[in-house]
């Protein structure tokens, strides 16, 4: 459709307003992170004021932030491997076989995405206390699996749905068994899908706050979200460190997000909408 002049002005006005609105908090955080402490606590508005990387060097040399980053990384990687590995075979079965209980299983995984974390929080806390898992990364890995597994199943199912069945039949003719076709044909063909699913599972674990806040107590065991939250205290808020941390935490997420977003959307629409 060709736009009329009036339509074009309207479109650009709308988009510019919301583009600015999307950018303001992000840009302001980045700008704040490169200001010295003395220029942050002011009532003057200056975009750039004595730019310095001091907040970043302080954050990275004080030890705890780096420790939290390692904890986050460990928990997220193990959760991802665990969830994707388990979800793959299940998603394949749901995608390829028509059997009794299939739609019930699919429904359970959809509903599992719906319930609030707090409902599992309390029983899991009791169970982890008994197993002495509180304050260890394993409490997080197990609790993150509760939402990562259903999510991965739905995503992977929609990827497997797009692989032509004929390829598997060809494999069967060449003498491969069911596990053989799955392992030798389906998995290699779905590497992009597996990668994207893994990435989104990783990000959800990387960003999770509620379970981490509840299951971790000692300062060394914290993950980044909870660690950052400890900076916010009513009397002394180190906004330089908070904004620098925010930038460091967000950059990798943002890069990968933009590489993978197209796949998430197609996964969401096929997995979630059509069922």
């Amino acid at each position, binding site marked *: 459709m060709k736009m009329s002049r009036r339509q074009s002005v309207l479109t650009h006005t709308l988009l510019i307003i919301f583009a600015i609105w999307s950018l303001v908090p992000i840009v302001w955080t980045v700008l704040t992170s490169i200001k010295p402490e003395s220029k942050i606590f002011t009532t003057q508005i200056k975009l750039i004021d004595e730019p310095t990387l001091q907040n970043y060097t302080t954050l990275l040399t004080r030890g705890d932030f780096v420790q939290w980053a390692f904890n986050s990384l460990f928990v997220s990687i193990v959760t991802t491997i665990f969830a994707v590995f388990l979800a793959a075979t299940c998603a394949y079965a749901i995608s390829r*076989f028509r059997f009794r209980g299939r739609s019930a299983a699919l429904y359970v995984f959809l509903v599992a995405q719906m319930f*609030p974390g707090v*409902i599992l929080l309390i029983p899991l806390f009791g169970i982890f206390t008994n197993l002495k898992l509180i304050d260890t990364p394993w409490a997080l890995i197990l609790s993150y699996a509760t939402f990562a597994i259903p999510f991965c199943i739905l995503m992977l199912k929609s990827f497997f749905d797009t692989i032509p069945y004929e390829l598997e039949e060809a494999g069967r003719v060449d003498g491969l068994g069911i596990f053989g076709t799955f392992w030798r044909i389906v998995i290699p063909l779905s590497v992009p899908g597996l990668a994207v699913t893994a990435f989104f599972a990783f990000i959800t674990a990387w960003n999770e706050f509620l379970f981490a806040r509840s299951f971790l107590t000692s300062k060394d065991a914290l993950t980044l979200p909870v660690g950052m939250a400890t900076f916010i205290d009513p009397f002394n808020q180190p906004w330089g460190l908070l904004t620098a941390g*925010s930038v460091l935490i*967000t950059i990798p997420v943002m890069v990968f997000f933009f590489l993978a977003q197209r796949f998430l959307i197609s996964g969401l629409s096929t997995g979630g909408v059509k069922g």
Partner: protein
Amino acid sequence: MRSRAWIAWAFMTPVLLVMAVIVFYPLAVGVFQTFTNIDATNQGTRFKPPSWEFVGLQNYIDILTGEATKFYPVLAWTVIWTVVNVFFHYTIGLALALALNQRFRGRTTYRLILLLPWAVPAYITAISWLFIFNGEYGLLNNILGVFGLPSVAWLSTWPWYYIMPIIVNVWLGIPFMMVVLLGGLQSIPGDLYEAAQMDGASPTQSFWNITLPQLKSVSTTVILLGCIWTFNIFVVIFFITGGGPGGKTEILVTYTYNGFTLGQYAIAATYGVLIFSLLLVFSSVYRRLAREA
């Protein structure tokens, strides 16, 4: 497709076993706890045997009669919070999707910028806005200062403590709606519009009679998802107002979490079950209404 069910179940067994241990069993424990008076003092430790008792439906009665806790005020605000947020997510998301669905220069750039909020972790978003709302050095008050207006304590003044978390959450939720609705718009066949144009329909008429009806299935799904997510979002309220002032901006999930941190396990578990039941009833009623409409 084959129908050899045993192979399918063999493929699914590992997941089902793990889910049984980490989801179904805890869920059953959680439901069981709602019929007890278990809390931090009577749950038992290494040195003290557990001393909690069965109380039947007492927790549900206490909560639903509004006697023991503030169920109804919190529920009311949670519903308002969800409706207002999803309303803005959907309308703004749709407006932006319609704008991006036209052909013009710079479209991809706009799309990428508008997607940015989705790529920021929710708690980082909350921290960024918290600094903007800061009473003494926040950007918002500094801007007011430029115009000679007095500062506002955004997070402790009525009605701002209700409005500010909504602003943050609206910011957070628009890109998802926009992207999914844009996908929906792109799948509407172009000849529908051409035919309408030939019959002399105005763009407004095409919007109401073609675009909206064609988007119905996508809209139904994203609105349902949006409602569930917004109902359950924890970090925005937790970081921005902390439920304050005086618990006025607490939503059901943060309220439940507080119960948990206070060691009121049975009450918190009952809240969890109530939240889940509310969402389940809501989504099945919603789906039925959507199918009939």
